[in-house]
């Protein structure tokens, strides 16, 4: 029994309220400090557990005892990798995501609250707790989109919350059904895994359907992805970073849980992977028609998450590791990408790729960070994306044969398109757009920060894959 996870949760939530309560001048410092401490704790756990070869923490705090529900938290490799990603993204978001310094107080409160929810969700050993953190995270981001962002944000935030609550309603239904149809009546994931086989097949299929749709909305998958482009486009930079970097992983983590909990999911694995693969290609084509750079990046999220679902659905060791590594890679990379796009918007006042030109002239670091981010998304070797792609597609080819490699075509299309964007808007310096503002040193540190992790774990993937305890 350790207290580290509880400590992280406590720090974030207390800091969140501190930021809300104290003067605006302190907000960023507190938020930075809190998320920094949490990041430090995570890295500490990483170092100590690498020495031991695995990570395994579990904690328990009393909660709704009438239902045998307690705040059960645990940390195996699965949870840890996601928590690490969350803390990295959250710290980077607080540090660099707001070059305009607008509404810092609200933003930082919500970021910390969301970090709290995300850490809690990724470490939950209990479906009820999982659900609660899920909704806290969703609501925090709803406010994030609704109160910070571009003029059309309110429509987007409504769309977001409707889709997400739709998901969480189904999620709740599924979780309750699992509870009541397992003979032991438990929310504990371990207990459920060991006894889920006794749920009747038809009911299992129903539960699988509910949960799958719920996670599908969140990930998001075609045909329920429509909240994502709008939400990302209209949200503030920080909002997009968290949305894409962390929130979409809620669904992916859920899928991971779903596929390990229900024995029947083995039968649905192939259709699920087919859907995910289709979603990948579909999103790749849709991306090609986008004109707003932020929308482009938003759609790449669908592509990458589709690939991650393919990995999860392949249900083998490589797939699982691939999905985890893919989630980590995508979180860090996409946060970098949204940061860059946010800075482009800040510098030039527009994100339309038809008018943005010559970024490299005016903001060199921004242009090259975008390039590095593209490397990460398209899975260029020595970025985390490459390791993820290798693992994922080994897994999916193992499970589905050569067809399992088809989603790579989605990456191909998006890769070609992203390089097209880079050429057109970032690297070509002919008649450049004049900048209207500068970015601070914080943003540059932010680029470096994300790139550091992107390349660190890309060059030394064993730092994460050395953690071998895959217990859910």
């Amino acid at each position, binding site marked *: 029994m350790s207290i580290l996870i509880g400590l992280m949760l406590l720090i974030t939530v207390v800091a969140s309220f501190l930021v809300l309560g104290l003067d605006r001048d302190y907000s960023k410092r507190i938020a930075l400090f809190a998320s920094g401490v949490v990041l430090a704790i995570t890295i500490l756990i990483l170092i100590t557990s690498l020495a031991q070869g695995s990570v395994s923490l579990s904690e328990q705090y009393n909660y709704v005892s009438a239902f045998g529900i307690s705040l059960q938290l645990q940390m195996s490799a699965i949870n840890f990798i996601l928590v690490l990603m969350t803390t990295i993204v959250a710290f980077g978001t607080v540090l660099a995501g707001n070059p305009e310094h607008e509404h810092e107080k609200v933003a930082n409160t919500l970021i910390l609250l969301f970090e709290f929810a995300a850490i809690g969700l990724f470490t939950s050993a209990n479906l009820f707790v999982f659900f609660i953190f899920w909704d806290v995270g969703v*609501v925090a981001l709803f406010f994030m989109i609704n109160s910070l962002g571009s003029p059309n944000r309110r429509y987007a935030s409504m769309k977001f*919350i409707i889709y997400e609550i739709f998901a969480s309603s189904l999620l709740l239904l599924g979780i309750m059904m699992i509870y009541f149809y397992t003979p032991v009546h438990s929310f504990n994931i371990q207990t459920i895994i060991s006894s889920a086989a006794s749920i009747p097949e038809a009911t299992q299929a129903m539960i699988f359907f509910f949960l799958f749709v719920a996670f599908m909305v969140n990930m998001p998958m075609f045909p329920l992805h429509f909240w994502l482009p709008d939400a990302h486009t209209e949200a503030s930079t920080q909002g997009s970073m968290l949305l894409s970097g962390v929130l979409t992983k809620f669904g992916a983590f859920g899928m991971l849980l779903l596929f390990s909990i229900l024995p029947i999911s083995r039968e649905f694995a192939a259709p699920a992977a087919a859907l995910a693969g289709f979603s990948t290609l579909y999103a790749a084509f849709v991306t090609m028609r986008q004109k707003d750079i932020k929308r482009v990046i938003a759609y790449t999220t669908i592509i990458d998450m589709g690939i991650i679902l393919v990995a999860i659905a392949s249900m083998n060791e490589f797939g699982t590791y691939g999905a985890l590594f893919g989630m980590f890679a995508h979180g860090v990379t996409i946060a970098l990408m949204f940061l860059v796009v946010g800075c482009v918007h800040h510098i030039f006042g527009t994100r339309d790729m038809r008018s943005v030109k010559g970024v490299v002239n005016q903001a060199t670091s921004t242009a090259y960070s975008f390039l590095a981010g593209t490397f990460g998304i398209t899975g260029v070797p020595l970025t985390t994306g490459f390791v993820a792609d290798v693992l994922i597609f080994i897994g999916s080819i193992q499970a589905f044969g050569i067809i399992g490699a088809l989603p790579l075509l989605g990456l191909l299309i998006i890769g070609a398109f992203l390089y097209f964007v880079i050429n057109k808007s970032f690297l070509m310096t002919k008649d450049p757009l004049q900048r209207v503002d500068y970015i601070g040193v914080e943003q540059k540190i932010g680029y470096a920060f994300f790139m550091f992790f992107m390349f660190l774990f890309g060059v030394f993937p064993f730092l994460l894959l050395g953690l071998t305890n895959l217990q859910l």
Partner: protein
Amino acid sequence: MATIDVTYIAYAIIAATMALIIVPLATIPRKLSFVAMVASTVLLAIILILAAYAMISGIDVTVLGIFHLYPFSEFFIGLFAFALALVNMLSYEYYPNFTRFELFFSFAIIGMFVVAMANSLLTILLGLELMTLPTAFMIMTSGRHHIEAAVKLFILSAIAIGALSFALALIFPYSPELGLTQIAPNTTFTGNYLISLAIILVGAAMGFEVAAFPFNLWVPDVYQGAPGNVTALLAGINKKVAFVALMEIFFVVFLQFQPIFSPVLVLLSIATMFYGNVVALVQTNVKRLFAYSSISQAGYILIGLAVATQFGIEASIVQIVAHLFMIIGAFAIVLWLESKNLRTLDDYTGLSSRNKFAAFALAILMLSMAGVPPLLGFIGKFLVFSSAIDTQSLLYLAVFGIVNSFISIYYYARLIDRMYGGQKKELLFMGNYTYAVVIVALAATILLGIYPNLLISAASLASKTLLAL
């Protein structure tokens, strides 16, 4: 310590209740509003403490043959005392002639407690009457433009009470004793269609009182027409008293007819949820919005009752408590803004820039109503849906409930969106009592949501003792 005869506590509760009537009588002549408010609040606090103590020590005693104090009734007496104290403070701040209000209010309170403590059908009928009529007077005397609402409430509740009386009349020939527990074992009921008709009549009457579709068409008009504090009373407490009556009648008197009344409640529940939520989607007046929202919440509560297991009742009780706090808090804010002449969704635009706390509190309360964890509303809904799933045959009821809870997010989120958008306007300040009420409601919503153990075990105790009768 020398043991006190526990029955004294029961007497003390009844005495304190009756003493409430003295407060307005003593204060009306001199218009001592503040004194009246403090006195009645103190009395309610005493009742709350006594009821809590009684519940903890598990007192089960029948007084005068018509009142029965046992954990179920003690739980609700305590709950209502607490909520009434909140409404009392609210009314003090807004109601033009507080001492006169206090008179009707005291009668209504007595009616509520009578229902909670009732030991016979007749007492329930009496209590309901005693609760509804003063409420209509409260509305009527608060101003000329409220009269329409008062008349509507009056006429329609008369019909409902009529239906209930008719049901009573149908039962009477078969069971001369109208004590709740005395009717139940009567075997001549089985297969008697008159009794079934009585059950349906009771269902309709209770449907009226708890605002179930299609007996609820009066609700939005009356809620909108009534002054805000009375609306809070109606939505927050009167309706819950009706639920108490419903539980007492169905689960004590008609428990053996569960196969008959359960489908009725299922139908009422589904219709009510859909009606409330779907119509709420298009509302532009905030008060009406909350009226429809509370209709839909009644639908959720009915789910647990339709399930009719101990767990279902327990879940419904939790949901009743949840809705009580949420709606009182929400109406406190609505009432305050109404006093500033802000009524529609458009008026609420930019509320957060005018009063941060109000917007925050209303947002939290609405999220709780929408069932977002870890707030109290979520716990209530969770338990209610769980109870439906637990029976396995009523799984679809949970599905309908969840669909509705999904629909409801739209109008809640829309209002939240309005409050946090828009231009900056001049600041608005909240009165102290309103502030206190909102704080209490908010604290209850958040704290009981995060740590619901206490509430759930109390609800569990209450439901068990109800079924044990």
